[in-house]
């Protein structure tokens, strides 16, 4: 590890802690009231799930339309676990999230293996069908609370927990993408045949990337349950999956920071436009179509947004100006 890497780490960690401290303070002094705090937490969950979808769609290039299903699996697994056991809060939270992620990952493996062998567009339909199956199952099974939903989940997630969970997931994705595994995944999106011809086991990496994506979506679902304290199976429908899709497309397919910005923006827009739901959805739909026609890799494309880089650039500019 050279000095540049270490200084990068220090800068990033500092930035993360500073942002946390500011927002936490604003919540404490009620500048951010409970209502906005709630939206922030939901935005955090959106970031997690949308980032996981970006791995499958933006980086791996596979159309996945059932992430609400993976989320639901994670949410119910984590919630049922926490209800069943009696352990300290953080043990239950962490174990619950991991279990939820693992269960979602297992389902991702089960549908990924058959669907990913086929041409791309089938995965979209299979995941869509899978999401519907999960929703129907949750509505009809008795141990998940059926149509009435699952109640009595402990509230383990608040701003602090979701903030650091988001940091963890984003750090994981960045590190994963910028490794030989991430490069293999990117190469598949670019040209599957060429990837295989330079020694990338494409089927393995397609399934692997998809399972990792499902795992993270499951973790996000688990967090949702631990925040809302109640799970309604009707929420995990096709439109919910599509909302994540919109975040990914808006933020840029292949841009994690773009996903973060888009998820934050959409969480707030959703809240404000809730009363005129149909107009909101018409607007989203038009955005999707227009974006695809004029800028098919999303608003930010593959660019990553960096506060530090921005500050650096700004710093350099002022230095030059000062020198003048």
């Amino acid at each position, binding site marked *: 590890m050279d000095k540049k890497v270490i200084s990068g780490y220090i800068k990033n960690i500092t930035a993360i802690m500073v942002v946390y401290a500011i927002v936490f303070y604003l919540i404490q002094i009620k500048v951010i009231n409970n209502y906005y705090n709630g939206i922030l937490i939901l935005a955090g969950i959106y970031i997690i799930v949308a980032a996981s979808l970006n791995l499958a*769609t933006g980086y791996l*290039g596979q*159309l996945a*339309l059932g992430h609400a299903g993976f989320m639901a699996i994670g949410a119910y697994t984590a919630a049922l676990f926490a209800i069943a056991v009696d352990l300290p809060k953080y043990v239950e939270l962490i174990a619950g999230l991991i279990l939820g992620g693992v269960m979602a990952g297992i389902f991702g493996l089960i*549908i990924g293996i*058959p*669907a990913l*062998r*086929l*041409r*791309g*567009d*089938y995965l*979209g*339909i*299979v995941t*869509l*069908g*899978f999401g*519907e*199956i999960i929703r*129907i*199952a949750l*509505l*009809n099974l008795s141990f998940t609370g059926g149509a009435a939903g699952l109640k009595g989940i402990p509230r383990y997630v608040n701003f602090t927990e979701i903030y650091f969970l988001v940091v963890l997931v984003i750090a994981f994705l960045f590190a994963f993408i910028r490794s030989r595994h991430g490069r293999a995944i990117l190469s598949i999106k670019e040209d599957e*045949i060429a990837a295989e011809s330079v020694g990338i086991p494409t089927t393995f990496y397609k399934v692997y990337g998809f399972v990792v994506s499902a795992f993270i979506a499951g973790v996000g679902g688990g967090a949702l349950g631990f925040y809302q304290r109640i799970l309604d199976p009707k929420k995990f429908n*096709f439109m919910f999956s*599509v909302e994540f*899709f919109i975040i990914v*497309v808006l933020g840029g397919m292949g841009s994690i920071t773009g996903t973060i910005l888009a998820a934050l923006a959409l969480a707030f827009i959703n809240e404000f436009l809730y009363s005129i739901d*149909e*107009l909101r*959805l*018409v607007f*989203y*739909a*038009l*955005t*999707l*179509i227009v974006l*695809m*026609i004029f800028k*098919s890799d999303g608003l930010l494309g593959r660019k990553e947004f960096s506060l530090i880089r921005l500050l650096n650039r700004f710093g350099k500019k002022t230095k030059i100006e000062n020198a003048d």
Partner: protein
Amino acid sequence: MAQFIQQIINGLNVGSIYALIALGYTMVYGIVKLINFAHGDILMIGAYFGFFALATFNVPFGLALVVSMILCALVGMTIDRLAYKPLRNAPRISALITALGMSMLLQNLFRLLFGAQPRRMPAVIELQRIEIAPGIAISNLAIITILLSVGLMLLLEFIVKKTKTGKAMRAVSEDKSAAKLMGVNVDKTISITFAIGSALGAVGGLLYAINYYQVEPYMGMMPGLKAFVAAVLGGIGVIPGAMLGGFAIGLIETLTKGYISTTWADAFVFGILIIVLIFKPAGILGKNTREKV
């Protein structure tokens, strides 16, 4: 036994509607290799056009059907021109996302225009039950549905196999650039395909609305998805496959509802999709193809 035959009749009834819708998916896929997610919503639009013709303008059923077919054909062509044509050579995933956006747009536009409340479809014909054997009955509506669907499928088969347009459609689906070199007007052929597919979807939608007595903005989603499963089951891109798949899905759905569980029937249909893709990804009548290197 009587109950079983009754279920089969009911299955053929819904199956014929699925088959009509599945044809639209399969034709469009065959020619531009696009899963047209918005096709399910075309059937919703067809049902609305039919509804207004019948309920607001009180026209006879036959005329309502024709009007709805023509309008949907225009809608289908317009969608293709505006949203899909600019993406003909774009990565597949962009076109798929556009189709998804189009589906959302149509659903919510109709919700915005006509409200989310389901509207009651007027009774087109006086419903009569015809007893065939003790315990087995078929309604005149079911007879009309099945006959109309089968008739239209035969007509489509004729168009595709025997007419010049059909020949052009087959040529374009085989190889777009070769067809162009041979003097086929590719854009026009694709437009016609969308028009025919959408017109069939309109019939499917109107029949569906009449069979279930109502129209609403999201009504196209479930039958659309099931019809897509039908198209995949039969072999996507293959016209007889869509018909076969449609009837098969209709039968499977009714039999599941009748003998296993009403609530799980939809899950069953999607389960079948996943199983088909594992064991015979090209579908029952489809051929395996590989990307050209």
